[in-house]
């Protein structure tokens, strides 16, 4: 309940923040929503020597669509901003489905999507969603900006390829090659529980068939899983139940769950497959309703 001592900086621009990080020699941590970092500091699982609080940096709290359909989510866009956005259900159905099931309503008023992706918790929901959308993180460091696919960003439990002096300034989702559809299903035992299993499925439908598909898996491996083979099984199909079944099977195979007090590995695999099927059926249903 009582964090260790640290130095505190509250920069007002990204450049300033980057400079502070660079000067801190890898001893600093960025504070965004603080909903993962502060709990760890309270338990003293984390004890950074310096905190760079980015909450005072203006202009990072957006989520919006570029004219070309590219979707951008700023580093200070909170989970609740996404949950409460009416426009999101059409623009980004997978994100809209995930937002209400991340953490609890109070954590959601602070926590950020970008922070969650950077935290790289295998049980975090957002990284799977981003992976299913082929999303990327834009990071700014002393040498400027670079874009990193979320699937490449995460290289282990709680590990990313970000340099200690890089800040993720936004998450970017490329424009769709068709009509977006998708869903996120999470098995949790109560609100605020981390996922026992979470599955994100995103597809882009064009001319009645799947032009692009992505499947991300939460909590069933040492890191977020990009079930790319499973997604590939959907591409070119009309999302018929055979195709979805095949994808479900492949997704279950891609999962690397551990048995623990939340469930056995077999069970978790089974839930992965079930959720892929359920999201597939949901999309099917809404496609039919729309038609």
């Amino acid at each position, binding site marked *: 309940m009582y964090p*260790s001592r640290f130095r505190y900086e509250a920069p007002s621009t990204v450049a300033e923040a980057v400079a502070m990080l660079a000067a801190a020699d890898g001893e600093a941590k960025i504070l965004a929503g603080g909903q993962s970092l502060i709990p760890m500091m309270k338990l003293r699982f984390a004890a950074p020597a310096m905190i760079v609080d980015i909450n005072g940096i203006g202009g990072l709290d957006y989520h919006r669509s570029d004219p070309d359909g590219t979707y951008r989510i700023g580093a200070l866009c909170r989970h609740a901003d996404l949950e409460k956005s009416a426009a999101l259900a059409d623009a980004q159905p997978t994100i809209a489905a995930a937002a209400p099931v991340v953490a609890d309503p109070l954590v959601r008023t602070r926590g950020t999507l970008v922070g969650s992706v950077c935290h790289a918790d295998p049980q975090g929901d957002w990284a799977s969603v981003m992976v299913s959308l082929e999303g990327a993180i834009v990071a700014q460091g002393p040498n400027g900006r670079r874009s990193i696919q979320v699937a490449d960003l995460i290289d282990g439990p709680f590990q990313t390829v970000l340099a200690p002096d890089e800040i993720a300034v936004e998450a970017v989702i490329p424009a769709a090659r068709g009509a977006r559809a998708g869903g996120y299903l999470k098995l949790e035992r109560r609100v605020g529980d981390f996922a026992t299993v979470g599955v994100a499925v995103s597809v882009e439908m064009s001319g009645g068939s799947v032009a692009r598909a992505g499947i991300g898996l939460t909590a069933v491996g040492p890191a977020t899983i990009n079930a790319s083979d499973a997604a590939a099984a959907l591409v070119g199909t009309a999302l018929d139940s055979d195709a979805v079944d095949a994808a479900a099977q492949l997704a279950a195979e891609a999962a690397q769950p551990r048995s623990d007090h939340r469930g056995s590995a077999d069970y978790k695999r*089974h839930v992965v497959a079930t959720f892929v099927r359920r999201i597939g059926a949901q999309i099917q249903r809404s496609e039919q309703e729309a038609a």
Partner: protein
Amino acid sequence: MALDEIKIGGLGASRRRVEDNRFIRGKGNYIDDIALPWMLHMEILRSPLAHARIRSIDVSAAWAIPGVRMVLTGDMLAARNLAWMPTLSYDTQAVLATDKVRFQGQEVACVVADDPYIAKDGCEAIVVDYEPLPPIVNPSQAKAPGAPLIRDDKTGQDSNVVFDWEVGDREGTDRAFAQADVVSTIDMHYPRSHPSPIEACGSIADFNRATSKLTVYMTTQAPHIIRAAVALVAELPEHMIRIVSPDLGGGFGNKVPVYPGYVVSILASILLECPVKWIEDKSGNLISTGFGRDIYLKGEMALRNDGRILGVRMHTDSDHGAFFSDAQPSKFKIGLMHSAFSCYDVPAAHLTAQGVYTNKAPGGVAYRCSFRVTEAMYFQERMVQAAAADLGMDQAEFRRINLVRDDDFPHRTPWGFLTDSGQYGKCLDLGLEAIGYEDFLRQKEEARQRGRLLGIGISTMTEPLGAGNSREYDILGIKMFDSAELKVHMTGKALLRTGAKTQGQGHETTWAQIVAHELGIPAEDVLVEEGDTDTAPFGMGTYASRSTPVAGAAVAMVSRKIRAKARKIAAHLLEVSEEDVEWELGRFSVRGAPDRGVTIQECAIAAYSNMPDGMEPGLENNAYYDPPNLTWPFACYIATVEVDPETGVWDVLRVVAVDDCGVRINPMIVEGQIMGGLTEAYAMANMQFITFDEDGNCIGSNYMDYLLPTAWETPGFELHEVVTPCPHHPIGAKGIGECATVGGPAAFVNAVIDAIGDTGVRNIDMPLLPDRVHEAITQGHDVSGAPPVRTEP
């Protein structure tokens, strides 16, 4: 002319709570809200290992931190003969470990500092060198030949067995089984759980060297017992100890025992001569303080083909952790486990019980429960469902056949308890009607045709609440009675104090209602105080639903003593003889001349200004109440559920509760108690448990893993009542605080088992996690045992 009892907030009024006035303003006075001048702060260093020898402890770095005022270790305590303390079950418990640590989270050292952040820094700076020992995490490991001895500190303890105990009629039960047409069996585990009030424990010890007085503010449900314990442990004179239990953020049994943090804060205050505050964090609370349950239950039931129960055999294997510190009456080793089947007409029963030490936290508290009745009733109602299934009988009908009938009271249970009142059949019928039993069975069948799994679970039970009587109930030899003291002031306002201690049950509201009922003094004119041993009369505190049955009865009795004196004063004022004085609520009048009268308030003034010759002035008294029997509330809980066959997730459709707790003092508060209890029942059945991996690491030591349900999952509750007054309680009330937690879990579990009835599965142990339900459905076998922390397949 007569007062309207409801208007003055008497018996039966859903009076709004007095205590709320401060709570809704954020002006409660919980332990952490108290700040004394020059107060220091203490934090505890806990063991990361479940079982290890302590080679050395290096505290020098902690001492070096600016702001650290004292570092305490087991050796320092041992030098003062304080390294061990007695438990509530005639065992000893380490205060700070000296030789070994015996569970993960055990207290190893304490740091006292200017603020808690620095105290935590100090704990982090302590270096302990441990030599790991093999841990024991369940009874079968504990009993295995060659198992490491956990309690090597105790002379004469050559195994990990704490006790072997039996109760009941062994031969009679054997005879019953010999006559059985069918023998039904069940084999279950009731998982380790934690009462987990939202507020954890804490204390502020304030020793004044000049006066030799020790004041301890602490989170305790039983301040007087603590005073006695502190006197014994710290060897201080009892009259120089004042225990104050402030507002408690819930208790549920967790705040009954004495914990090391309390003891060390007291010692630190004595040594440092300033107040020392210890506020436990939630992880510390969950990992080290009084747990509930953790018991294996094996049962056999002898049945006749017509559905009559002939006899029951029970065996329990209980896991007490490293120290036997169950809070329970000293006569009974496994609490009131042998109250099972008290609502049924069971001719013969026998229970054997064995308890063991393991490398887990001690505690065995009565978690919202009257000393293991929760386990007993779960045992009973799960067994009953299995028996009905084995006989191919409807579960409601099987209960109806075996429930004790209204005209059979008083009824002697096979264990020797005397149940004295109830309308069991009526409660069951009311519950079935409310849920629409027949309709639901039809719906269930229809749903089944379409591949959907609906289920209904019933739980009917009576439980013994309100320990004592003092013949049978004592804790460490202190008899279980309770007390009340009433002072009626000159203006007719009153101050009432009892030996109980409210933790959210609303004593400040309901005790005043009893006074209003007995004396006609409006409830709002009665101030209720509890929890300060310098002012409250001696009592045994609040747990086991004993407040209303015992302290509440004392309130009625002391009010009657006051009324008896007031009657004399009234006779004097009215100038008639006492026999000619009649009582109606709040007023004495002259027999035959009802217009001539005096109010209780007028009597109060007279008690200080115009008393009869020879009468002691004042209108004050006290009462110590030793109940003739326990109280026996009855309840029928019914839940309906739908199980998702694909994932094993189950949802509650409806919950109906019929409670008969006798006369309801404040119906609003009674209903609040029932809903709170049902929520904990739901939590037990669905998500709440503590388990351990093979290394003895505690899973469930924070709210990330130890799950309490939120408003979102918690179902709605439909409440109904039946009132059968308690024949021996002065106002006819019975205990209610725990019934729903005790009886509720079986209703949920029975419902899920009913939903998957086609599989032939008889048992899934709590909590009914989706993967366990799914395993039962797909594999068609029982899923029993402690919730597994499975290793890699």
